[in-house]
């Protein structure tokens, strides 16, 4: 193939991402479930005909899906037989290149001029796929069967016609089944939109040219990623992060991240991590890999996404650890929580290598809180889901953001006024989690404190959160952010704190009871004793920290609304001497 002209290359690149963006848009606009339409918990892409390698992906796909779908598509390709135009597979098996059961993938061969040219696929988070608890996040499941219905790749559509028998099996095994049909149609329609747009692109530029462009774009993305990696000094880097517990056994799970940078390659070795766990915090390999990709994309956001982007990233299979889950290990927590700890371990390892690009650890939890109960006023049962953000880590550029979105997500929280309209609860406060920003030359952002009071009836509360045991780690001398806290206040009883701190299931609550959640603050960046005393003063005036806290953490003395310069100098000198 001769060199493609640079204009065609750029235009075909835009064209491919346009196909994906239009699939993303079609999916979101027609989807029924708020998890997809509002929380954008979905992704669409184009994959290589032979091995499922990523060709292009929508700009607004959920970050956690950055690399998973190519593994899932590959598993479908391996099993696919007798393909015809209009066929479409449905699959959610975590062990076949997936995440957790709730992420349901549609995978479709894309035919052009009678031959398969590529595959189109999307993932959407369904609100329920059966299992022990509504929503699928069972904090104490010990096998995947408790987490819901597991579908191997099956043709839900055959030559464009939906298989009503397969559909009825699915709908008989999930909750709120009547609303799912809207989502299924939306998810399938999105791939049809992609098919139409991709055909138009091929008609216009020709099959050979587009094929050559795809190959060239892969080379270019790899080249760009290598140029970024080259900025990291050669050497071995080490980081670690801890998941509070697996929800069943109260012990921390360690992610041991060893990164070797050599030339323009990065080698990731996680084999020193904890062994497989009993509870749902195991991660399937597709999610483990994708979490590493996601972390690198957060560090170098400008690199476009295709299979070439990942070529210089070599991830050793961490078999024998909880990051390489096999059947029947429960995995519901892998996409929402473990993925964020893996990313945190990558950040921690690489921050000393690229201090001006990286940042201290972000809160890194999705903060899933579910409350299921019956409202005696309406006579209906309900399930309230809340997610929450936390502080981001400080960086060379400045202090961390407060109440930032989870590392893997882009979804907003539901407004308090909407929650109170729909559910028999009162949110009594939604406030900044004071003191939670990790101290540093640039401090971490702050988490959130919120309180939910039950107004009517009885209910059960469940949590899948993290960073309850240790706060998000500081970097380059910065302190850790404040940890996640959950506390249940029940009438006439002492406060209940979940034994696993951040994970628990089916806590009984009744009218008048209160649930308090504090989300983590971000890690501090750099020596807190180097923070500008005027910035510390401003933080005190705003009530972010108390006078006593800043004296202890930053060595700054504040009195009468001013910095006491002399005492500050002495405090800081004393603390510096103590540290050495």
């Amino acid at each position, binding site marked *: 193939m001769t060199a493609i002209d*640079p204009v065609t290359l*750029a235009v075909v690149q835009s*064209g491919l991402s346009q196909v994906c963006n239009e699939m993303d848009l079609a999916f979101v606009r027609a989807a029924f479930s708020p998890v997809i339409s*509002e929380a954008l918990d979905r992704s669409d892409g184009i994959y290589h005909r032979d091995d499922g390698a990523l060709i292009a992906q929508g700009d607004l796909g959920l970050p956690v899906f950055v690399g998973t779908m190519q593994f899932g598509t590959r598993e479908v390709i391996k099993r696919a037989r007798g393909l015809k135009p209009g066929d479409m597979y449905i699959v959610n098996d975590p062990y076949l290149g997936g995440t957790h059961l709730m992420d349901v993938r549609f995978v479709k061969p894309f035919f052009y001029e009678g031959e398969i040219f590529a595959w189109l696929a999307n993932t959407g988070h369904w609100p329920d796929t059966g299992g022990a608890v509504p929503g699928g996040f069972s904090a104490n499941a010990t096998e995947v069967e408790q987490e819901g219905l597991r579908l191997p790749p099956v043709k839900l559509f055959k030559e464009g016609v939906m298989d009503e028998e397969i559909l009825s099996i699915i709908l008989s095994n999930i909750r709120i089944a009547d609303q799912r049909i809207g989502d299924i149609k939306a998810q399938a329609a999105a791939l049809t939109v992609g098919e139409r747009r991709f055909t138009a692109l091929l008609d216009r530029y020709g099959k050979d040219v587009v094929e050559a462009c795809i190959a060239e774009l892969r080379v270019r993305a790899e080249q760009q990623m290598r140029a970024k990696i080259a900025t990291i000094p050669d050497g071995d880097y080490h980081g670690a992060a801890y998941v509070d517990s697996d929800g069943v056994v109260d012990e921390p799970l360690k992610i041991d991240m060893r990164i070797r940078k050599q030339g323009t390659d990065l080698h990731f070795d996680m084999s020193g991590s904890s062994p497989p766990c009993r509870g749902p915090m195991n991660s399937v390999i597709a999610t483990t890999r994708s979490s590493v990709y996601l972390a690198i994309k957060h560090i170098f956001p400008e690199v476009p996404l295709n299979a070439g982007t990942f070529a210089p990233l070599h991830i050793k299979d961490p078999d024998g650890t909880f990051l390489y889950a096999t059947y029947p290990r429960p995995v519901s927590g892998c996409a929402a929580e473990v993925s964020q700890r893996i990313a945190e371990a990558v950040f921690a390892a690489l921050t000393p290598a690229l201090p001006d690009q990286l940042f201290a650890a972000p809160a890194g939890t999705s903060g899933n809180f579910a409350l299921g109960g019956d409202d005696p006023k309406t006579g209906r049962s309900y399930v309230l889901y809340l997610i929450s953000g936390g502080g981001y880590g400080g960086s060379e550029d400045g202090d961390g953001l407060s109440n930032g979105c989870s590392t893997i997500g882009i979804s907003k929280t539901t407004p308090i006024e909407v929650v109170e*309209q729909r559910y028999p609860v009162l949110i009594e406060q939604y406030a*900044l989690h004071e003191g939670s920003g990790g101290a540093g030359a640039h401090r971490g952002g702050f988490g959130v404190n919120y309180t939910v009071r039950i107004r009517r009836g009885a209910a059960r509360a469940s949590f899948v959160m993290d960073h309850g045991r240790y706060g998000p780690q500081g970097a380059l001398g910065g302190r850790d952010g404040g940890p996640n806290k959950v506390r249940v206040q029940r009438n006439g009883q002492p406060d209940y704190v979940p034994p696993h701190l951040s994970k628990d299931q089916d806590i009984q609550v009744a009218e008048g009871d209160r649930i308090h959640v504090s989300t983590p603050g971000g890690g501090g960046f750099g020596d807190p004793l180097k923070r500008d005393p005027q910035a510390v003063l401003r933080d005190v005036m705003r009530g972010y920290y108390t006078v006593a806290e800043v004296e202890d953490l930053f060595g700054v003395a504040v009195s009468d609304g001013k910095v006491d310069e002399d005492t500050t100098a002495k405090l800081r000198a004393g603390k510096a001497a103590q540290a050495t």
Partner: protein
Amino acid sequence: MAGHIIGVDVGGTFTDLVLMDEGGPPRVAKVPSTPENQAFGVLAAIAEAGAALADVAGIVHGTTITTNALLERKLAKVGLITTRGFRDVLELGRRTRPKPYGMKGQFVPLIPRELRMEVNERIDADGEVLTPLDTDDVRTACEFLLAHGCEALVIHFLHAYRNPVHENHAAEIAAEIWPNRFVTRGHAILSEYREYERGVTAAVNAAVQPVLHRYIERLTEELADKGYGRELLVMQGNGGTVTAELVPEHAVNTVMSGPASGVMAAAHTGGRAGFPDLLTYDMGGTSCDVGVIRDAIPQVSSELELEYAMPIHVPMVDVHTIGAGGGSIAWIDEAGMLQVGPESAGAVPGPICYGRGGERPTITDANLALGRLNPDALLAVETPVTLDHVRSALAHRVGAPLRLDADGAAAAVVRVANARMAGALRMVSLARGHDPRDFALFAFGGAGPLHAVALARELGIPKVLIPARPGITNAIGCVVADLRHDYVNTINTPVDRLDMAEVAAIVEDQMREGRETIEREGVAVEDLRCIHDADMQFLGQSHILTVPIPGPDVTREHLAALFEAAYWERFAVELPEIRPVLVNLHTAVIGRRPQADIAALAGGREDGGPQAAATRPVWFTQGWQDTPIYRRADIAVGTELNGPAIVEQMDTTIVIEPGCAAVADALGNLIVSVEGEG
């Protein structure tokens, strides 16, 4: 109409004026904007047009004063009084980050934490009072905020959209203490649920209110000094106008009024020219603004976000900004790929050809190198730069890495920019549920008509409409805009449980409030009309679909049927088993002003066919072609032009691609029929 009407619009670079003269031809003026005090530019434009203010019957003014104040954060000091437990809502937002990838970012709330005060009070989602308002708390908070130098005050309580009694009571108490009128009640600006969005909208209102008040007061005085004794009307983001006296009350409504007036002009022009369905495309130096017009009515949205985490949820003409303009810089990334934008050379240093020190090639430079722009007619040149210098920069910075010569590099920049802009335009229309092929493209702004025909071809849009005066479209929008006030109330009840009498009462209240406001304004209107919409969704959904409804007497069955029909049209899905919900009721009350005749703007010659003023080689996809260059002023009504052709006028350049044909209509619009593929 008695006397002249002036439309004057302040843009980033120029202040534009159009004076519609009763007897004679319209007069236009274009003078540099004066950002330190926009009134100077306004007065200079009036002077340049030679208008005697004593003879002027009305001035309609579009100002960017509030937008600029927000973007530059040159705002009044504002204090907040809110429900106990919730003062941090404005700082925490809804857990977002600026971009999907990259865990960094900054956010500074409009009101700092030390000026956010909590008081005891609580109302629930049904509007029931759970905790009565503690009036002593309110007094103490007001005194504290005044002592700390606040000029404006926001009162924002949870569920005030449902029951405003506490906000109103707190405002009464504040009025006794607060030394000025700058007290904003959240529900009065926006009676819609979602506490962060309503709170930020109210905070924006308070933060720009004193700034706008001072500006309008000064301008009114200056105009009076020059003998002007009539009403000054100010453009709002909803595409309507309001009197100078009332405008500061809802100061937030003026944010984004500039793009809105452009879309209003387009709606008016398109409606008269027989193109009621338009995509508007306004390309300037740093960005493009894209809007959608259906049946000659601009689409309105209440979901605008001015910048990261700054939602402004009052109804505004739905204008989407794309980060591509004449100043967008072309560069080669680490993968060796040509990129255009999003970085812009802005006004300084600007494109290379402006001679203000710009070194990096831009879209404008590429257009110049390709013969599309006339090197002798550039408006903003400081020190003349040779064409060879521009070509050499293109060859060196873009061409060399791609192994292209100067021509190839310039062509590459234009083609890549067009492909990206076309993609963005497509996404804007698809996201609003429209296929771009069902529309005509209305192109204006300095650079819009340069690219419009190529974009239309890319998008399969059959017609491009270029108005007579593309460079003063916003000023024309001021002249044609009507008085308009919008009201939104949240209902959020399934249709089968609605109290239809309550629905009727709310809509009637909205209509009454609008009528009373227009009466208070005392401006002559020909008639009053109301437009009503319902925001609806299926129970459990989060997306909203806006459905036009007939008025207060809409029935339950009709409401449900309208929604189901609209849902089917958009998504081709029927969901009979799920209940529809009425989320918001929206009424726009419009007082139609006497119509100015835009045909007067046409101003073409009466005689003869097209005579090319010159010929020059111009690059098109097919290569260089000797292309006739016409002067817009020479093009008479009914003239037909065949592409390739270039039409030049003072404020823009129109490129008619090969294979396309243009005809000048009676309003002076050039209507281009788009043929073939790009």
